[in-house]
């Protein structure tokens, strides 16, 4: 019985509140003015993918290349590309080499050298552009190393030479090459930031 009365009282209060809201509403709605505009916005992507292919869009992932040494025979320099698959221009890229090891009486070192503005002749190991050192990597120092050598424009590729040294007597390993691009932090690797007035 008491609950029924309470519900009725609540319903009456709600009805009164709604009525008050409806009565007050026109005075507010009638006294405002608006002006609107729009802007379509998209954010960019920043991405570098290592690949052994010289064309096409590579799938995300690292590149693995085998190296070996038997007494006097050592794997010659190997080559891969760093492809800018993002929509943003880059000024720097980070490189990392994992998997180095497997040598007897040696400390294998992978040295990466980019051919900026050209490509490597994989037969003669000559760069048609400007050879630019990326860095040397060992099992103890795999990187990543942040350098200015980067596939700068969207869709471009940077040709990179990977040469091994300090192999010791013999051994083999598979090096895994990775690339990273960071939008900000200690060093910005993207172009810009940009301010546009339009």
């Amino acid at each position, binding site marked *: 019985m008491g609950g029924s009365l309470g519900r009725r009282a609540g319903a009456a209060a709600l009805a009164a509140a709604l009525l008050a809201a409806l009565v007050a509403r026109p005075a507010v709605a009638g006294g405002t003015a608006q002006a609107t505009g729009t802007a379509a916005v998209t954010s960019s992507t920043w991405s570098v993918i290592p690949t052994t292919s010289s064309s096409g869009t590579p799938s995300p992932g690292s590149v693995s290349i085998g190296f070996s040494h038997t007494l006097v025979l050592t794997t010659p320099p190997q080559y891969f590309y760093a492809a800018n698959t993002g929509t943003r221009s880059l000024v720097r890229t980070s490189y990392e080499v994992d998997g180095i090891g497997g040598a007897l009486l040696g400390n294998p070192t992978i040295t990466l050298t980019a051919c900026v503005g050209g490509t490597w002749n994989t037969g003669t190991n000559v760069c048609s552009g400007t050879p630019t050192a990326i860095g040397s990597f060992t099992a103890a120092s795999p990187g990543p190393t942040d350098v200015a050598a980067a596939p700068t424009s969207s869709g471009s590729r940077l040709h990179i030479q990977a040469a091994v040294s300090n192999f010791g007597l013999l051994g083999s390993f598979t090096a895994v090459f990775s690339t990273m691009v960071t939008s900000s932090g200690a060093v910005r690797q993207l172009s810009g930031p940009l301010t*546009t007035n339009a």
Partner: protein
Amino acid sequence: MAAHSIRSSRTRSRKRVALAAAFAAGVLALTGAGVYAGLNAVATGTADVTSGTLSLTVTADVGAGFGQTISNMAPGDTYNSFVKLTNGANLAAKDLTLAVTGSGSTLLTTDGTKGLAVAVTQCSVAWTLATGACSGSTTALLASTPVATLSSTPGSVVSGAIAASTVWHLKVSVSLPDQSETTTNGTPPGGTIQGLSTTLTFTFSESQRTAVTTNA
């Protein structure tokens, strides 16, 4: 002879009664009309009344204004649009606000830290498009505020009274906050800000001036 005299006398008597009744009715009618005219006395006056008009419009000031495509934004980028906002018509206003909403639901408009932010700055004269500089004096009307906030809580642009015919030269800045995000071998991290899109809608709103009571 005597019978004829009696009939004649009765006829005259009836005429007299009829005349008396007609007279009485006429007196009553005249008296009643006078009273009725006295109850309808009228006094008149006039007052011309017009209602005010409240109008807010936004147009391109220098450059293309709103309606542009801002593409390929990276962290730290800022895109400035220059618009002219006018409180037109003849009614003063108050309390100008800006709400910004985005189509869809992406981090661009839902993340208060990584998502887009909007700022509004006023110049006393039209902005210089090439440099984005103001040759007059500037006033920061709305500090950089996340769209995630402005979509639910409009930001105050002008607090208080706004005179009729007020014109603002505004620089509306859309920015993507600087943030560190690393893409490894072409794979972005989870919750990436990359490759997203939205259409922002900017809504400036104002209220009519405070109602006044005039005694004149």
